[in-house]
């Protein structure tokens, strides 16, 4: 167990270094950051001044090494837009994105798992087809389009929910639905196929031969086994939601890390973008590690090994 954790930790560090390096290179090499910061009407002298001030005239490797060294100590630099430490700004917005992600995941689970179970119990009936249809539509509609439709329908026509901002819990309903809807098909399919496979297994046949009640067979025996890969998927999906929240937060003007990322890109606030990319990557790596642990916890067969 200890070796396993150590190995994963090492992997996480390597991924962190690689992701930050690749991102750093991409961002610096994609254009001239100094020019982007200076703005459209800047003179060459002003651009050069900015270049020196931010250390952008040094060799790229040195710039990266400098950034990485500071990042190790927790210093992700200063945002040229806010004129404050990047870490502080992000910390202020992180809670909101996590809340949004959590609500979206909760929505996806509440919709997808029961649907997947129902579809597995009655395969090839109308229930199954409805579930598959919902899942298929969910995958096809772009999340931003779905968000806009929700706004028109629930925000404007029915006036039930607020359409922008993140001050009350009501503000989170539509964004959570828009963000979570995209994960629903994958979760539903995995639940359905997992349940189908488990329901056809020998130990379910044994459970039926023991005369156990339908509810006990379904939940105690079948779901308990079928849910194991789903839990891993959920952790991974949460990671994707944190990264994909950008579009939803922008539409609904939610003041989270995703919206911050979008604005920072528009403002060429590279230290901020760099830090956000690293943050999301690290979250993903931690979540996959966590999901492996969860897997081992849920499946006795893996535990002993």
């Amino acid at each position, binding site marked *: 167990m200890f070796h396993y954790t150590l190995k994963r930790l090492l992997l996480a560090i390597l991924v962190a270094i690689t992701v930050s390096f690749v991102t750093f290179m991409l961002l610096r090499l994609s254009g001239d950051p100094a020019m982007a910061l200076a703005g459209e009407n800047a003179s060459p002298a002003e651009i050069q001044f900015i270049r020196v001030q931010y250390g952008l005239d040094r060799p790229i490797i040195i710039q990266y090494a400098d950034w990485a060294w500071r990042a190790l100590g927790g210093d992700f630099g200063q945002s040229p837009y806010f004129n404050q430490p990047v870490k502080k700004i992000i910390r202020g917005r992180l809670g909101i994105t996590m809340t949004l992600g959590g609500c979206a995941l909760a929505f996806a689970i509440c919709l997808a798992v029961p649907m997947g179970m129902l579809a597995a119990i009655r*395969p090839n009936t109308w229930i199954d087809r409805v579930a598959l249809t919902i899942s298929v539509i969910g995958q096809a509609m772009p999340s931003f389009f779905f968000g806009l439709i929700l706004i028109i329908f629930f925000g404007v026509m029915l006036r039930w929910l607020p359409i922008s901002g993140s001050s009350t819990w009501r503000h989170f309903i539509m964004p959570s639905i828009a963000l979570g809807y995209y994960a629903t098909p994958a979760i539903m399919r995995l639940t359905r196929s997992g349940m189908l496979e488990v329901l056809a297994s020998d130990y379910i046949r044994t459970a039926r031969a023991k005369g156990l009640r339908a509810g006990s067979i379904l939940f105690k025996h079948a779901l308990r086994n079928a849910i194991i890969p789903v839990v891993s998927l959920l952790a991974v999906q949460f990671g994707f939601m944190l990264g994909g929240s950008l579009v939803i937060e922008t539409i609904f003007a939610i003041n989270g890390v995703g919206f911050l990322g979008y604005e920072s890109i528009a403002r060429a606030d590279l230290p901020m973008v760099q830090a956000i990319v690293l943050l999301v990557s690290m979250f993903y790596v931690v979540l996959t590690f966590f999901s492996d642990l969860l897997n081992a916890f849920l499946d006795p067969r893996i535990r002993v090994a």
Partner: protein
Amino acid sequence: MAEQVVGDIQEVDFPSPGQILRRRTLAHKGFMIGAIVLLMIIAMALLAPVLSPHDPYHQDLAKRMISPIWQKDGTWEYPLGTDNLGRDYLSRLMYGARISLLIGVSAMVISGLIGTFLGVIAGYFGGRVDMIVSFMITTRISMPVVLVALAVVALIGGSLNVIIWVLGLLIWDRFAVVTRSSTQQMRSIDYVSAAKAIGCSTTWILLTEVLPNILNNLIVVATLEFAHAILLEAALSFLGMGVQPPLPSWGLMISEGKEFMLFSPWMIAIPGFVLSMLVLSVNLMGDGVRDITAPEGRS
């Protein structure tokens, strides 16, 4: 000894694998619907120069914000209405199909080549090669695609080429994962060992034995990534950092229509609907291929 007067016991004829495949394909409603819709959209894109009633870039400020044909003040001259700059929506829609399809196919091909190459060498050679490729895949998956793509395109500039290459270089992970596991499975199967035994070179084995057998999974993933690329481009364009105006990308049309969506919801509904239809048809076909070639997955 009894006479050998035997009444024939009727032997039941089960159909051949080829017949089963054809019958299944034609009977698979999802696949057929997806194929028909996709063909219609492709036709619309290819025939846009011929079929579109107007020039999609032509602005006529006197004819702004005309409603589509099903509203009270719609006309047949502009069946889907006009946008805020007086451009014909139907024509923009048709030309927009070209952009979505072009970017989708190109990004899919690029990412497919990268991912398949990486996946096959990882699965076939194993060992250190596999370790490196797996690490690359893990790193790529943990990077937030939308953020990175957005940042790079914003900095370089939103030309079609840039978008295609950025997307292509970012979405190869699923190709790699699937081809890697398929190749790993194939490695241990008998005919590869047999081919090695008669002295075929590694490249030969890879090209003629391993690759064709990975094809089914590859097709399914290709459709998924095709749809993925289309959605990504739409998102990038919607956020203003993708395809630049005046090009008629559907994502861009939705973004431009957002201001007016409360009074003229058709401005976002129409491109959004067609976008969804395109992605839907591709997904249906991908699911269909998966069902048809691997019936064990179905109940």
